[in-house]
């Protein structure tokens, strides 16, 4: 029986008789966290490499080509090692405890949010009924870390970056949440596993965006808000390298800086997975349904296919984010606010209204 943690299940199965249950719980959590951290780090590193390659090819160049041989695949690892070995600098005027805590908080909260993601049907770190709620709450925590970093650095540029981040995230949490309500109305659940499973009809094409005409515009709104949430161009104002030097992370260097960097890519992955689950069918696709038919519902190959389908969808979203970043200029802070409050929020509300009416009529008919 699934009690919410597959690692605990495995441990219970293989642990020697008489092990105290708190030890089992603790070790299961430890293993889970370890795997999560490793997985997210690998994904973030891959995303960094991918970003550099995508940017390169969009700009008629190759991007990294040397480290590791094939298309510079080991570039991120090399960079990571370099960043680890760099001198850890804390500015003299900085607020030391906050300065040190900020990257940890940023990375920690994004890891916590990622814990709620499903890896494959039935494979997850934490099965939370209010999963989406948890993800949104945790990913908002990063803002606190960013503001802390900006303030603690004792630099004018970082304060600008931090204030921009705070204003931007406050503005975009609203359309982000509201636009997510549209698929929630269709799905009726906050649980990511369940939400994904509900799209399995129509040979795996019964995605929410096809279930209700208002989900597609909601998806566009969600995607734009997610860009702003993750500080991606054209909403990368907190960093705004041509205006604020490097924004809130101006004073950071070495591994602490790389935490912010990893957070950005982890957040991109998180948002892409959420988009995939709540708009684009989650695990479901014709391949998934085919694999299920061929191998059987519980077969691990079916699960693998499902997991890969989700991964492909997530990376599709990440690619779109990169594509946008290397196409668009940056918006100004007041335009960010205008866009958030005057365009995205009312449009998202309209989508909710439309989806509700459609759903009510549909259900009424059916």
């Amino acid at each position, binding site marked *: 029986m699934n009690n919410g943690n597959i690692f605990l299940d495995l441990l219970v199965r293989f642990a020697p008789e008489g092990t105290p249950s708190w030890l089992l719980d603790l070790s299961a959590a430890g293993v889970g966290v370890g795997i999560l951290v490793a997985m997210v780090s690998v994904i973030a590193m891959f995303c960094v490499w991918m970003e550099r390659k995508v*940017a390169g090819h*969009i*700009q*008629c*160049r190759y991007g990294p080509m040397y480290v590791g041989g094939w298309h510079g695949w080991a570039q991120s690892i090399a960079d990571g090692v370099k960043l680890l070995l760099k001198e850890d600098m804390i500015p003299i005027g900085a607020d030391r405890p906050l300065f040190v805590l900020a990257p940890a908080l940023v990375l920690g909260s994004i890891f916590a949010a990622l814990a709620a993601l499903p890896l494959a049907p039935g494979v997850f770190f934490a099965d939370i009924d209010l999963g989406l709620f948890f993800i949104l709450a945790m990913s908002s925590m990063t803002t606190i870390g960013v503001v802390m970093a900006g303030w603690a650095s004792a630099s*004018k*540029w970082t304060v*600008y970056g931090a*204030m921009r981040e705070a204003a931007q995230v406050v503005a975009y949490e609203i359309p982000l949440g509201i636009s997510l309500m549209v698929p929630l109305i269709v799905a009726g659940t906050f649980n990511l596993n369940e939400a994904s499973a509900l799209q399995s009809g129509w040979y795996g094409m019964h995605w929410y965006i096809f279930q209700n005409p208002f989900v597609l515009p909601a998806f566009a709104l969600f995607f734009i808000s997610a860009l702003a949430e993750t500080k991606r*161009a*054209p909403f*990368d*104002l907190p960093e*705004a*390298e*041509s*205006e*604020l*030097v490097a924004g809130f992370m101006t004073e950071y260097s070495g591994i602490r800086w790389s935490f912010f960097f990893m957070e950005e890519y982890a957040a991109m992955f998180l948002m892409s997975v959420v988009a995939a689950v709540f708009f684009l069918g989650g695990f479901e696709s014709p391949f998934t349904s085919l694999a299920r038919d061929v191998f059987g519902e519980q077969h691990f190959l079916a699960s693998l296919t499902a997991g890969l389908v989700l991964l492909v969808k997530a990376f599709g979203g990440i690619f779109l984010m990169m594509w946008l970043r*290397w*196409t*668009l*200029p*940056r*918006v*100004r*802070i*007041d*335009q960010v606010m205008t866009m958030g409050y005057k365009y995205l929020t009312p449009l998202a509300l309209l989508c909710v209204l439309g989806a509700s009416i459609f759903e009510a009529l549909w259900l009424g008919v059916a």
Partner: protein
Amino acid sequence: MLDVKTQDLEVNMGPQHPATHGVMRVLVRTDGELVTGAQPHLGYLHRAAEKIGENVEWLQYLPYTDRYDYLAAMNNNLGYSLAVEALMDIEIPRRAQMIRVICAELNRIASHLVAYGTYGLDIGAFTPFLYAFREREWILMLFEKICGARLTYSYIRIGGVFNDAPPGWLDEIGHFCDVFEDKWREYVDLLMMNKIFVERTAKVGVISKEMALDFGLTGPMLRGSGVDFDLRRDCPYMIYDEIWQAGAYEIPVGTGEQGVLGDSWDRFYVRVQEMLESLKIVRWCLANIEEGPTIGELPKTLKVPAGEAYVGIENPRGELGHYVVSDGGKVAVRCRVRGPSFVNLAVLEDLLPNTLLADTVAIIGSTDIVVGETDR
């Protein structure tokens, strides 16, 4: 009511800042994101070019002219050469004039490409920068073929040009012209007409016609404010008058199409359009170029008669003036350089207050300065 007042923040933009296009410092006083005062500080790249001009021989000064506006070195060479030639009585062969015009106009395109690319960078779009540099690279390669250098050409000399064009060079330029037009379309679509770019630059940093004249702005800064004036047409030098009479090119002027007349977008669009006009001039020269000598008859040692002359030419950034004074000796008495960037930059003091911090970057970018020239 509560009277809440925050303290103004003084921020040093520069000397090392991505938006100042070199080592310039703008002391910005801000109230939150709002800029309440700005003061440009120059001189970080001051290399005493004018003093050097008084200490080296006439021809030896040529390489130094490359170095003030290093993005348009051909134009600088040309300006200096014309100023010295104004004192001397020499006939410049027609082929040399044609090659001069081709080089100057290609260099104008290259310079505007950098302006376009870096402005995109200021606004936050990275990709147009590399697209622009791709075409600029081509132009630099063409220059490399004719004079051997990519940035500091020292090619246009007093009395003509140093070398004749190598075989096939003119055909390559023809090919470049054909390809460039398609790419130009992409520049406009990708950045100039992008909604975010328009929002960021239209109605930002508006320079009225009166203000432009009062500040002595020239070049695209002036034309962006709707003043139809171009030295190539209105104070013609070399063969530009002939080209204008032939109807080969037009002068783009700001129209306020996307916002207000004289805003950053207008200034920028003038530059982008100028690329195409320069291309037309190059095409005309390619069609009309003839064989012939490329250097006038010069004495072995350059002798410049006593006197003084001022010659202003249309640099990509505005009027580049050289005021040279000679006493008949081997060395200039005075070699004054009127750099357009220097003059155009002065407008920042009045333009920046009451804009947002992000606009500051957009406005500095729209003046398209080269710090090598402001500081000389």
